[in-house]
Every structure is written in C-alpha cells, then in structure tokens.
C-alpha cells in the first residue's frame, strides 16, 4: 500500500514538474508605455502611501462596524467623492491643507473605529465624503505624465475599491466579541498613525 502511494506520489510530482516546465509563459519584456503601464501605475498608486491605505481600510472597518446600510453606502460614496477631488487636482484647482486633511482623516476615522462610534448615517457619509476629497486631490496632483489617462483611472479606482473591500472583509470579524475588540484596537492603530502623519504634515 505504502509502496503504491509512494509511486503515485512520484508520478504526481513528475506531472507537476512537467506542467511547470511546459507552461507557456509570455516574456512581457516590452510593456507598451501609456497602455499596460497606465493601468498598473494606477493600481499601484493608492497602495503606495500608508496614509491613504490606512484611511481606506478604516472606511471599510467602520462600515463593517456600522452594518447595513452604511457598509454598502460608504464604499460607494468614497470612490466617487475621491474622484471628485482627483478631478480638481488634475485641473490644477488648489485645495489648501491637503496633507493635513489626509492626516486628520486618519485621526478621525481611527477615533470612529476605536470608539465604535455610531453617528447618524448622513454624518458618517459626510465625514467620509469630505475626507475622500482630500485624498483624491492629493492623488490628482501626483498623477504622472505620459500615462494613458483612462487606464490609469481604471486601475486607480479599482485599487481604491478593493482596499475598501479588504477593510470590510477584515471588519467582518465584528460578529464575534474578540473580533469587536480587535477592530477597536485596529482603530487605535490608525489613530496613532494619523497623529504621526499629522505631526509630519505640520513639521
């Protein structure tokens, strides 16, 4: 019996080696500039800054704490308002105190998650919408030249939405007592990071 299993194991290993060796793979040696580069740069951009990542995750965590319908509305509102800010940033319209606004967003969202705050829905939406404009404006002014605008925007929005999804996924631990505590601790971490970003923005 053991002998047969070993033989099958060897054959299985051989099959895997053959599959890996024969799998046709493209070299992707020359990425067309302005096409694939635009999409990939857009995907990378939202995850390139810890301040943005923490704020977007915190939106997802807070939405999960608030439950239905906030858990659905916040991720719908954030990308649209962020894109609104991004549009202003691209147009060159100034928004004073962008970095401070981003840092304060982490502080406020950290407080909300750590305190498990439950304001009225419109207040939660307003908080998320206002701060997402700051994030979007910063992204809009940082967009690199020479990219395909549409593909860049698609990658950028998709990455932002997926970050919310990750936050909501993590926030689903809210159904357990230990999970609720863990979420509040995560909110405290976002709060501390926000204070650090705020200090950096001031100095």
């Amino acid at each position, binding site marked *: 019996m053991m002998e047969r299993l070993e033989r099958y194991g060897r054959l299985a290993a051989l099959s895997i080696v053959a599959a890996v060796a024969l799998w046709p793979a493209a070299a992707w040696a020359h990425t067309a500039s302005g096409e694939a580069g635009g999409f990939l740069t857009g995907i990378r951009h939202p995850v390139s800054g810890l301040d943005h990542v923490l704020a977007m995750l915190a939106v997802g965590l807070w939405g999960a704490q608030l439950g239905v319908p906030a858990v*659905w509305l916040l991720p719908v509102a954030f990308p649209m308002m962020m894109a609104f800010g991004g*549009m202003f940033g691209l147009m060159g319209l100034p928004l004073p105190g962008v970095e401070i606004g981003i840092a304060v967003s982490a502080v406020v969202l950290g407080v909300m998650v750590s305190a498990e705050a439950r304001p009225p829905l419109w207040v939660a939406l307003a908080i998320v919408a206002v701060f997402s404009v700051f994030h979007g404006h910063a992204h809009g002014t940082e967009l690199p030249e020479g990219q395909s605008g549409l593909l860049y*925007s698609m990658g950028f929005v998709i990455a932002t939405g997926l970050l919310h999804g990750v936050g909501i996924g993590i926030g689903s631990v809210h159904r357990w007592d230990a999970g609720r505590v863990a979420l509040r601790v995560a909110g405290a971490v976002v709060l501390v990071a926000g204070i650090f970003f705020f200090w950096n923005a001031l100095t």
Partner: protein
Amino acid sequence: MKGKTRLDGQAGCYGSLAAVFLLLWPAGADAHLVSTGFGPFYDGVTHLAVSPDDLLSVLAIALLSGLCGARHVRAVLFTLPAAWVVAGCLGLQRATEVSVPVANTLSFMVVGALVAVDLKVPWPLIVGLAVALGLFHGFLNGTAIAQGGGGVTALLGTSAAVFVVVALVAGFVVALRAAWARVAVRVAGSWITAIGLLMLGWAFRA
C-alpha cells in the same frame, strides 16, 4: 487480482501524465487569419477589448439594464449592437477620425451614476439610452476603423462583441437575487462614475 489493480493504477497515472503533456504542449496561435478572411472580424472583436471607453459604456448600460429587469435587458441586447452597426457604417464614410473625449467620458459616467443610485429607469428611456450610446460609440468606432483600414466586417465584429458582453453581463446581473449582490453591482457603477470624473479631470488637466 492485486497485480491487475496495480497495473490499472499505473496505466491511469501514465494516461494522466500524457494528458497533461498534451494539454500544455505550446501550439501555434494562428493569430493571422488571412486565409480564412476572418481577420478583420476578429480585429473588430478585439477592438472593444482594447477600447476601454467603449467597454465601460457597454458595461454600464449592461449593468443598468440588468438591475432594471429582463425586459430591459432584452431591449438593450438588440438595440445597442444594431445602433452601433448603423452609426458605424456612417462613421466608415468619414475621411477623418472623430475624437470627442469629454462627450465620450460623459456617456459612460452618466450611465454609471444611474447604476450607482439604482434608478428604476423606464423601458422607453433605457431603449433611448441604448440607442444613443450605440449611435455615439458606433460612429466613433466607424471613423477609427476606417482610419485603420478596416471596413464593415470589422464593425460587425465589434457589434458582435458588444452583443456578447451585454448578454453575459446583463444576464448575470438580472439573475442576482441577494441584496448584497445588487449592492456590488451598484458599487461597480460608482467605480465607473469615479473613472469618468477622473477622466474629466484629465480632459481639462492644467
């Protein structure tokens, strides 16, 4: 008996191994269909895949019709590709390519916003939207295809791709019953709107 079972097992494993080899053996893609005459048709099919603005518009109207119900889906499924072909044929007659980035962006941004707010669009309105989108994007496609040396065959390929995308996406959405799944569709609409807002920024970039 025991020996026969072992032999059967070995034969099965070697057979599996051979199947893996055959499946993974790299073969020619036959990408250039000159001999069949279907090259321009597939050019048209792939044109939709490499034109994100067209694709976003098709996705947006497919999602919207799916949220509205099967009757809306059936209407969009046929009116959108038909309008696409008609306007595309007109576009093929133009000597120069037409580029209207702001109108192009608005076309998918507005429909994406309707998806995001889950608006129950009346049947005549969604038919009108599908016709308008088909005429607009079809005409732009026609001018672009003409510049690339393509013709009606390429245009038919694009329209066929539009039909297939609408059928798959709207058919998937119309079958959704769970509340969260419907919200996921609305989130997709908000993403399309967000992309449109960013594109407006790109269009008026300082």
